[in-house]
């Protein structure tokens, strides 16, 4: 079996997800035995024309991004969105509910019309995405699961239940019992309840479960002492596009 050709690309992001991958010290060498990495700007600069799997980090936020992602989609068999920017627009999407002109003036000042800009979109708003690895930065266990599954030709199994499930499996003390707030009840599992396992609340960095009961979530946060505005702000931190979905961002 020849090793699949794998490439990594970054779009609008902090590149934290790519760095996160390089942090897998112990697993990195084993991973390299499985795949041929042909493009990875963070670590090397070879380029190849066709890929078996392209991992995309970052959101789509400019016309250049749109062109590049189309080009990559044409050249890859499987496309995986890596990290919350690529999956939902992530933190970048916070600008989407501000006036675009104001945002650009804040960033570029007088040069604002030199840089064509779009709302920060998930990759799936532009091209077909086969699999998604959520999290900000992307969750290592889920990334490894997807990579191994694809190498073996299996369909990755991505959870669609709450972080609370993983928290309860580990019998963590719930941070709600310490008077904190927590988005774990409506955030997708897959990080092994990383933050609550260290006594911190979940900020929802992996995005909401599908079918989220949005009003119920607001009620829940109100019961924990937030106003509706604050509750929405908390829910939108990583997930503006999911919470303010007035146009389709490519969800089923």
């Amino acid at each position, binding site marked *: 079996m020849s090793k699949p050709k794998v490439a990594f690309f970054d779009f609008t992001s902090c590149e934290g997800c790519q760095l996160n991958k390089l942090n897998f010290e112990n697993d990195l060498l084993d991973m390299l035995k499985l795949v041929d990495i042909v493009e990875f700007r963070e670590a090397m600069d070879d380029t190849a024309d066709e890929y078996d799997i392209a991992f995309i980090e970052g959101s789509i936020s400019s016309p250049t991004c749109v062109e590049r992602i189309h080009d990559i989609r044409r050249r890859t068999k499987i496309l995986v969105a890596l990290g919350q920017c690529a999956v939902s627009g992530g933190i970048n999407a916070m600008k989407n509910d501000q006036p675009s002109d104001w945002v650009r003036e804040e960033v570029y000042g007088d040069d604002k019309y030199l840089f064509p800009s779009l709302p920060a979109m998930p990759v799936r708003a532009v091209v077909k995405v086969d699999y998604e690895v959520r999290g900000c930065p992307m969750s290592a266990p889920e990334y490894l699961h997807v990579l191994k599954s694809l190498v073996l030709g299996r369909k990755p199994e991505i959870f669609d*239940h709450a972080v609370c499930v993983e928290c309860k499996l580990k019998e963590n003390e719930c941070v709600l019992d310490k008077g904190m707030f927590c988005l774990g009840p409506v955030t997708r599992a897959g990080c092994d309840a990383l933050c609550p396992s260290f006594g911190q609340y979940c900020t929802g960095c992996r995005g909401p479960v599908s079918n989220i009961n949005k009003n119920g979530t607001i009620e829940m946060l109100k019961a924990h002492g937030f106003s509706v505005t604050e509750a929405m702000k908390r829910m939108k931190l990583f997930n503006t596009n999911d919470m303010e979905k007035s146009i389709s961002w490519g969800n089923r």
Partner: protein
Amino acid sequence: MHLKNPLTLQNKGYVFFDSETMKTFISFLMNQAELIAAHKKGESSYVFRAAENVDEVILDYPRTIQPLKKFFLPPRETLLNFNLEENDFDVPDMETKKRIFFGVHSYELQAIHILDYNFKRGNPESNYLKKREESLFIGISYTPDEYHFGKSVGLEIEKTEGMCLYIEPMEAGYYMFVVDDNGLKLLTEFSSETVALKTETIKPQPKEFQKKIKYHYNRLPQVFDKVYDSSVWKKVSEKCVGCGTCNLLCPTCYCFDVRDEIELDTINGKRERFWDGCMLNTFAEAAGGENFRDKLHNRTRHRLFRKFKYITEHSGELSCVGCGRCTSFCPANISIIDIINNLIEEVSLNS
């Protein structure tokens, strides 16, 4: 349908332990077997775990996070290890060792009794039944908090069925009631002489439940005959966020999912099962993506019907033991007692 009558304190006599003797007794038990007891976790939570130090064992606690089921149906359990290259697998060894579960509440025992029933029925669940062997239970009374409602489901605090000893704390120490021969044997071995059991009647301080179901538990199956189309389910689902906490921590919920995970060598892997629950999004999803309970109100209804009707029709016992976990740990403050009382109200209005 007639619900079985729960037994209450059927002691054969008791001895008295002061606090020091109790500690020595716990140390003695720790030498006899693995001793599982409640321990503090975090700021204000409790968990069952193996005791390492007598002083860390907690006797007075409202409820643990995970119920006792975690020892017989672990939250994550490797079912088999496989090797794709050799196309082979092996089942991990499961040695049973003697375990004493110390200081458990009556609802916990009743929940084990219900799990036994479900796992023995049909295809016996061998992993569970194997782990269940060689378990002794020493019960203790508890002070109901705002979430317990044992009595409303027919479970007195002093129900001792399944226990070998039962502890009733009092001011200067503990009454140790002998419930069965195993209990008597433990006490005899501990004191290394014949134990003189007292039999004078004692009256422990009566303990009141703060929460009550409006109807006697005998009437609940009839209520559940009439509430399938109740408006209560939709009301509850406005608040419920579907996190599944109420399933996972329920001592009588036993559903699990199975997943194969391969190592990075893509050769070795394991098949693991982990707790699942009917409140979760994908629980009722079938091949092809069809989800036959995709709405939260359908899931809440299913959860309660599993506690008060579906299994009860076979077992003659309610599958809710009134531990209050689903309510006290619900992030949306949904109370199972309120749901049931609202259903009862609707039924009595409409009849």
